[in-house]
């Protein structure tokens, strides 16, 4: 088992916890709110995109990926339960 696989497995295990769900939910709420938003509320462009636009769309995409990982972790768990 490579270190990466080990890491992946450990992460999947953590993601199965309900607490992780709540933490990520709250984290998402906080990240998308004042005062976090205030940090990115600037007249700056990154790669030609307005910073806030990039932050919001990027954060959003990340949150979707995290949920995706969550559901995968859950399926993994289900399979394991079936095997037992």
């Amino acid at each position, binding site marked *: 088992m490579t270190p990466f696989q080990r890491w992946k497995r450990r992460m999947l295990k953590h993601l199965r916890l309900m607490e992780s769900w709540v933490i990520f939910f709250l984290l*998402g709420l906080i990240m998308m*709110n004042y005062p976090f938003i205030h940090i990115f509320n600037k007249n700056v462009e990154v790669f*030609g995109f307005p910073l806030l636009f990039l932050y*919001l769309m990027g954060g*959003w995409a990340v*949150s979707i990926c995290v949920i995706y990982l969550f559901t995968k972790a859950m399926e993994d768990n289900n399979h394991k339960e079936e095997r037992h």
Partner: protein
Amino acid sequence: MSVGLETVVGVSLLYVILLFLVAYYAHVKGEQGQSIVSNPYIYSLSIAVYCTSWTFYGSVGKAATTGLDFILIYLGPSLTAFSWWLILRKIIRICKENNITSIADFLSSRYGKSQWLGALITVIAILGIIPYVALQLKAVSTTFLIICGNQHIHFPKEIIGQDVALHSGFIAALVLSIFGIIFGARSLRSSERHEGLVAAIALESIVKLVTFLIVGIFVTFFLFDGFTDIFSRLKAQQTVYDHLTTLGGEGESDYANWLTMLFLSMSGIMLLPRQFHIMVIENSSEEHIKEAMWRFPAYLFAINLFVIPIAFGGILSTGSTKGADYFVLTLPLLSGHSWIALLAFLGGFSAAAGMIMTESVAVSTMFLNHLVMPIVVRLTPRSWFPLLLINLKRFGIFLVVFLGYAYNLMLGDTYTLVNMGLISFAAAAQFVPAMLGGLYWRRGNKAGAISGILCGFLVWFYSLLLPSFIISGWWKTDILEKGPFGMALLKPTELFGLSGLDIWTNSLFWSMFFNAGCYLFCSIALRQGDKERDQVRKFVDVFRPKGEEPRWETKRLSKPVTVMQFVTLLAKFTGEPQAYAAIGEYLGNREIDEKGGVSEFELPNLKRFVEKTLAGSVGAAAAGAIVESYLSDVGSKMEPFYDIFSSVRTSLEESSEALYVRLKASEIMNRSLDLRIIMEDLLELLNKEFKFDLAVIRTVDSTGALRVQSFKGIEVDVILGNTIVPEVDSYIGEAFLTNKAQFVNDARNITKAYTQAILARQNFSSFAHIPIAREGEPATGILSVFSINIVGLFTEQFLDLLASLAGQLAQAVKIVEEREAREQERKEKEKALLETARVTRDMELAKQIQHSLLPDAPPSIPGIELASRCIPATHIGGDYYDYFPRSPEIIDFVIADVSGHSVGAALIMVETRSVLRAQVMTTSSTGNIIKQLNALLYEDLSRAELFISMFYAKYDARDRTLSYSSAGHNQPLLYRHCERSCEELDAEGMILGVKPDVEFEEKRLEMAPGDVLLLYTDGITEAENEAGEMFGTERLMAALKREVDGDATAIVEGIYREVRSFTRIEIQTDDISVVVLKVLL
């Protein structure tokens, strides 16, 4: 540039027909059980009904006017997806298990099936949804106008085609409501899924996403040169650009507004009636949530990707933000790509149609169940009710759509699309406290929910809906500026002087403040009703595994209702076939008695099932009301059992009272061994603890009848006076015969005539007969308890307790019986032992007497030595020897052995002795003596079935002659001194007792000095050693030869010693008798 009216109408018509076909196909497939919508893809797509024309057109409008905050309407739902596996799954589970039909049904069910709450939520939903529906219709009619050639959409009042606009909106409303009726109101069962509707929604979701992406790509990459090109071009208009890409200014109000939008969208995603309907009611598997959790946010992400480019592109192309709501449509039109515009129109139409159809179905269900039903349930059910109800539901769909249409006509033009949608969101947000509290907070109660939602709703109405009327100019007043009656504190948009906030934040803050405040306060301050508590368990503990908490039934129906009665009731609301199917499924393998009823403890469950089934059609609140009013019509009602344990226990653990009684009872059983005392004390305990008026113990007697053993309480002759032969015509008989407790909780419902006759003379309200039986054994008695006043005394739990006490009593009875049986046995054994001892003593005595009958010492005769010995066995025997001196020189001697070792043998021996003694002197011939003896004894011997072997000899010392006769006796040994050898003496003769007349040979021989004659019984030759060998004649001869040199006594002792050393056994089994005659040298 525009698209022709005919083309637009034609394409729209084709599209609607396509929707119909898809919906119909899905519906048919669903009916066949091959659902095409029951999968996570369709589920995720159908949730995207969230994206209405507000999304399709309004997002761009909002992005073009206020910038990035449009994104919040989609970011919020995206974030809630994290919680779906927790919250949404719980809601879905609850709804499936309780046949819940809508969000109003959900909340009213949770809070004690309150009809008021259901109605309140329905009113809020309808009022809240009207602007939203209006918005959709407005979008359809406006875009229709635009695409047909009128681009002056910012002056809609002045356009020439006013009648066309009206037409298109009206037609859209009509078509969509018909669609809703066909696929959303096919049957009354609103808790079932509408596969056709879902399929259409999913298709529309695909269409709106694809068309929007097409427009986005077209604008971004064809009209402009990608994202960065649009941004850099707009940057030339610095102020506009800054305003749109950042949150304007540094004010807190913007951030507050940000939070408000996020909160509104987060509550909207699950609590808007259509979202609740699609996500919860139409959900077919909890597993689908998992997929939808990321697919739906991804859908939102995709549909919002091009909002900013389109909005900015629109500003760049048209030079202003006017008509920004319809940039999606106008940009392709302006650039001459009318087919893209047509696609966009279809996308927008899809978005609007999906929303209207789902919303109208969801809200019409609520309308029927929570506004119409409360009235209907007060009427007597009729057979045409199902028809009426389904049509009322269809009417509800029309009502919702056309109220929206009316709202649109009256004040649709003043607000932008987003603003109208937000009003609905703010209304749905009023359900948040009651919803979350309902799912996780046990204390949350009906009063809290109603007051909270009502207050929140009033604030919402005052601070949001009312201003929307005023702003639209529909109501001319200066309340907005000066406040009602000039009270500035009460200005709707700056309530209680809270200025500086936008209208949404202001409204949301105050409505949530009052809503959550009232909910919390009332929930804490006021108690929950019984019904509410029941429901709390079903909601909050829905994931608790079944069976973990075996519930004791705490309710009973005061008058039993049969299954058929319930079926009839069900049929009136759901139709007959459905009613029979439902009940059939429920009954399954449950027991039904001969009268078509179920057991008393099952009845409340049946009632709940009927309620649940009805709830699937009419909502939980109405279903509860229907069943209750029906029960009261037949004179029955659900009431709690009499609370014998002073608190209604629903959990596994027993109440302390029950434990106390058990403890006391076992103390009673252990304290005494007297059954009478045990029974009396037990009855005393029962009467004292449970307030019985009479408690009786009967046990079955030897004739099989139940006889009163003990009783406590009032003396009732009709009950105590008679001995009952157990038969099924009485409850007590049935209890005894079936070995199952029989009880009557309300004597008015008694059906057994025998019992009726008894109760006619003594008034009891409830009673129970509990068989006294040990586990797995037939009953040995009956414990009966009676109460005069208390109705509904016997719960399952209580009967269990009584049965366990009766079981304990049976155990005690058994123990006492066993103890008595043991005592009896012991006594008998003792008696037998005594008897044996007596017999043994008698036998011992008899043995001694018998022994004393043998001669003490032989007489002395000159020239010979005589010696004899009898060593008796442990028991009495039949050996005998004797001497009869005839003269100083002549002596007779005899040895005999009576067969057997019985007392009979001993008696015969005694008789033989007497007879022989009398006979000896009458004749001198040995043969004659034995012959006479045989004749005399024959009868006695044959009667006793005994025989005697005998050897009789006569010795004459004068000539040393020995004459002898033998009656089958062991042949004596004669040792000849001169020859130093042994010979056996034999004479013809049969043993005595075989024949009455036998001749005995008499032999004579002469003895020489030193000769020894040895007479013996078979005790010597048949003595056995451990190996089972017999002593035998050979050994006897050898022993005799060894011992001949001693005197007669020594010979006797020697032989005995030899026998003893051979057998090596202390206990000899037979008498050993030896007589020795030695002729002196």
